[in-house]
């Protein structure tokens, strides 16, 4: 999901450009670490921040069913953006955190954002176990919670499930030029909890998917956006696939078996074609896709549950729950940026 790198950079690039003459920002790009093929993951340390990399995130999406029988989607995201490859102290701006939280019902979509600097402890992540936070938004081994002006959610984690690694043992390539990230996931999380909506509280249960990724490299300069799919089939398998749009389309996918074993697919194996577009609070985006991974016999239609899952935040994009039908049925999450 390294595509997300792109928009974070879009957000901070102006400051970096402007900052060439200031505080030695011009040389910073050279000082950041780069993802290395063959990197040996080290837990619980790797659940924590990698301050020497420019970008990092803790990204949770959850497909939930309410006691009322309705489907709901929940997003909890913490981004770390380094302006310098060092740990921040005090009010220093070396490490800036940005939180996004969203809640999608079939006809409404709530989204909110937070910013913080880690030096004073307002946001951060632990190296002693999965524990990331910004303000009172929390993601740890036991809970996922966040609150906005008009919604809040609190999910208890019943079972974290296995961690799986994308690409080449967690080294996930993003472009033909070789841009890459470190990327692992926990796609089998079982949760239950409550959503607090303007219409009242709803008890929910369902499945959540955690993505952890860090990198320093921007995308190739011609890559303008991406479409990212995380799908849970009724049969227990899962599929992660993304499609980076540039002068060429670059795709990558991971097939995840119910026991947590994976198969990685290189550029071209995974295909996604937009079928139907829809208006949103932002631009028009495709809300119905034909998705295929022929090597696994996957020929499916992916359709947004709520077509207007646009996050009208400082960094704006579309992220929402989807229904899957075709050779295999299921549910999942779709993210689309750069439209």
């Amino acid at each position, binding site marked *: 999901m390294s595509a997300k790198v792109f928009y974070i950079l879009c957000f901070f690039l*102006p400051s970096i450009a402007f900052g060439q003459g*200031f505080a030695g*920002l011009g040389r910073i790009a050279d000082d950041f670490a780069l993802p290395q093929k063959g990197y040996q993951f080290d837990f619980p340390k790797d659940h924590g921040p990698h301050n020497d990399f420019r970008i990092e995130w803790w990204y949770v999406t959850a497909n939930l069913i309410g006691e009322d029988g309705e489907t709901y989607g929940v997003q909890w995201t913490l981004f770390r953006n380094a302006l310098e490859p060092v740990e921040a102290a*005090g*009010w220093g701006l070396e490490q800036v955190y940005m939180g996004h939280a969203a809640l999608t019902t079939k006809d409404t979509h709530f989204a909110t954002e937070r910013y913080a600097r880690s030096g004073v402890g307002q946001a951060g992540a632990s190296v002693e176990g999965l524990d990331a936070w910004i*303000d009172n938004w929390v993601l740890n081994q036991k809970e996922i919670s966040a609150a*906005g*002006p008009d919604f809040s959610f609190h999910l208890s984690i019943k079972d974290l499930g296995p961690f799986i690694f994308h690409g080449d043992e967690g080294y996930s390539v993003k472009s033909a030029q070789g841009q890459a990230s470190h990327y692992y996931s926990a796609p089998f999380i079982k949760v239950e909890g409550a959503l607090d909506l303007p219409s009242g509280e709803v008890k929910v249960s369902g499945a959540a998917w955690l993505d952890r990724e860090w990198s320093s490299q921007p995308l190739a300069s011609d890559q303008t956006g991406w479409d990212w799919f995380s799908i849970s089939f009724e049969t227990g398998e899962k599929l992660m696939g993304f499609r980076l749009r540039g002068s060429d389309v670059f795709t990558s996918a991971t097939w995840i078996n119910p026991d947590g074993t994976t198969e990685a697919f290189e550029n071209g194996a995974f295909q996604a074609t937009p079928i139907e577009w829809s208006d949103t609070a932002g631009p028009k985006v495709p809300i119905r896709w034909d998705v295929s991974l022929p090597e696994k016999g996957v020929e499916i239609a992916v359709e947004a549950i709520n077509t207007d899952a646009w996050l009208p935040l400082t960094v704006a994009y579309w992220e929402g729950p989807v229904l899957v039908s075709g050779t295999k049925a299921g549910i999942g999450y779709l993210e689309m940026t750069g439209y």
Partner: protein
Amino acid sequence: MKRTVISALLSHWLKNPLQTLALLGGLALATALWSGVQAINAEARQSYQRAANTVTEGDFAQVRGEVTVKDFVLLRRAGVLVSPIVEGGLNGVRIVGVDVLTSPRLSAIPETEIGAIYGPTLFGQAQALDQLGPMPEFRKTAVEGAPPNTVYGDISVVSDLLKRGDAIDRLIVLKDQPRGAVAPEVLGYTVTPPQAGTDLASLTDSFHLNLSAFGLLSFAVGIFIVHSAIGLAFEQRRPMIRTLRAVGVPLKMLMRLMVLELVILAAIAGAIGVLLGYFVAASLLPNVAATLRGLYGATIAGALTLSPIWWLGGVFVSIFGALLASLSVLLKLWQMPVLAIAQARNWQSKGIARKLQLSGLIVCILLAIGVLLFGEGLVAGFILLGALLIGASFLLPIYLSAALSIGQRLSRRVLAEWFWADTKQQASGLALALSALLLAMAANVGVATMVSSFRVTFVEFLDQRLAPELYIHVDSEDQADRTLSFVEPVVDAVLPLVYQDTFVSGVPTEIYGAKDHQTYPDNWKLLEGVDDPWGQVARGAVLVNEQFARRTDQWTEDKIEIEGRMFSIAGVYGDYGNPIGQIVMTQSVFGELYPTIRPLRFGLRLDPEKVPNVAEALRQFGLADDQIINQAAIKKLSKDIFEQTFVVTDALNVLTLAVAGFAILMSLLTLANMRLPQLAPIWALGLTRDKLAKLEVLRAVLFAAITSLAALPLGLVLAWVLLAVVNVEAFGWKLPMYLFPYDYLKLVIEALLAAVLASLIPAWRLKKTSPSQMLKVFANER
């Protein structure tokens, strides 16, 4: 045929350049004054809008006291959206550090710049940034909408600059809190409410009311001129119109073409008027800006913009005015028989006019009485104003003829009797122009009275309210304790100022706790009250401001409930410029009602001579410049501002009088030709042309004098309505009315002068009329 008719119609304007000038000039002047005043008002309002949109950290509730970065993180992690503030001073500039990542949007830091925070950047008005001195390591970004004398930066930058480390001064509490967030008070923090906001627009409305009244009246006066010019043109074109119709031009076509002609002329005049108005506004705006800036702290951009809307508006107003002014003339044309006599008559039909005037007057009187008895609200106030002015102009001809009849009855000599009779005969022709003069003078008297009364009241009010020689405010109780122990030995008294916003009798009200000190009874004048009101306050009664008393209709000796306790009102005080209710109680009672509120503002009483030294000592002690306010400086500023206000009102006075003078000139010119048959016999009886001309000038002065006599009381009534009716409806307080006889005298002299100037050209023309022309009167068919 159309072309022939048009050229026939237009030839009149070419042959009579003076009339063309009167029509174009009158419309242009009316449009100019109207659009000029509109421009000033619009510019000022736009500036308030900008000011009202300026968001500073003071617009938010704040957690004060001893707060540290730990408290910030604790509150954030408890789900409360707070944002830290670091504050200090450098080279006399206030420096505020905000956390750009958690802060609400502040006007001083433009959104587009937030991405640029990492380079150490300071934001503020250019003047404040300059005052900081050279700082090569900082990038300085000028922001027009920033509060004055304050520089903002990210907390990381300002903490370094002020060498504050991780320490913070206080926390802003954001307005929109997430679902389920607890209040900081629940966690044991003290939260102070946002700074009491002042609604600039409502404060300055009184000022704009003046300007609008001027603009409207000037327009009315301009329309009188146009009416005269069009009336004259019609009279003179009567033979031509008869001829045109006799040769077969249909009436409808003639009417259409005349309206078209009028619209074109009005559009030209409107465009000229807009340009003139621009110059009027541009030359007055600096004064208006200075006035408003000083008086209310409202910053007005010094430059005007000529928007297309403004052009269109001006032209539309001009056309509307021209059509309004020509309505009666066009009606007359419609009803005129084809072969009506070609002779020019006094174009005002007396009998009908008199009836119209009387019925109009009655309607206006009934309307005014109705509004006074049953009316409510600002609109009613304006209807009353309108009824008064229109009624007065209806009354003027009746009043003139009555006044002249008295003169006639008192005169014994033949010449005097003729003079009075002739003047009376002329009165109806001049009635409109004199109405213009009446309105202009009344407006001047009214507005001058209002502005001057406002000045007297406000200066007195400042003297009462700003009795302490120095004011200081501190950020925390701790700083208060330290500052007080420092300052108490060197001053005569310390008056803590504490207040709480609440609702009393359903009205938003500020409750003030006042120390029992001689300062208050010495300086505060009450509008009404019991004996020894401050003694009563010390014993547990309260004083309320006029706004509160009016809104709740609770006055002296009434009982009110505040926070569940009953209080007796010991008096009502004037509180000018404050939009909301206010109650003053003694400090000890205030402390019982609001035990958690500790004073952070103090008034210091001391020998005025010692003020600079004490202020300097406080600065050395560590208070920032904006924490020390010198009372004498505020007062001087306010008084300077009123002088500026007078420049504006004086300029408008002169302009409206000039317009009225122009109206008289045009009317006299109109009448001059018609009067020849009346003057010729007198000349033939032996009165020289020179003598006749002098009598013409005298007549104009007499008219102006009689009109002035009526304008003075009308102006005073106007002022009373503005002060006691419109002001109360608009702002909830009544301005006491003062009289300024010297100003009125000056105005009367100016009006007489205007009349003399206006009569000079017709008198000179009369003097130069050749005897043969005089003789022709007897030879003519007339």
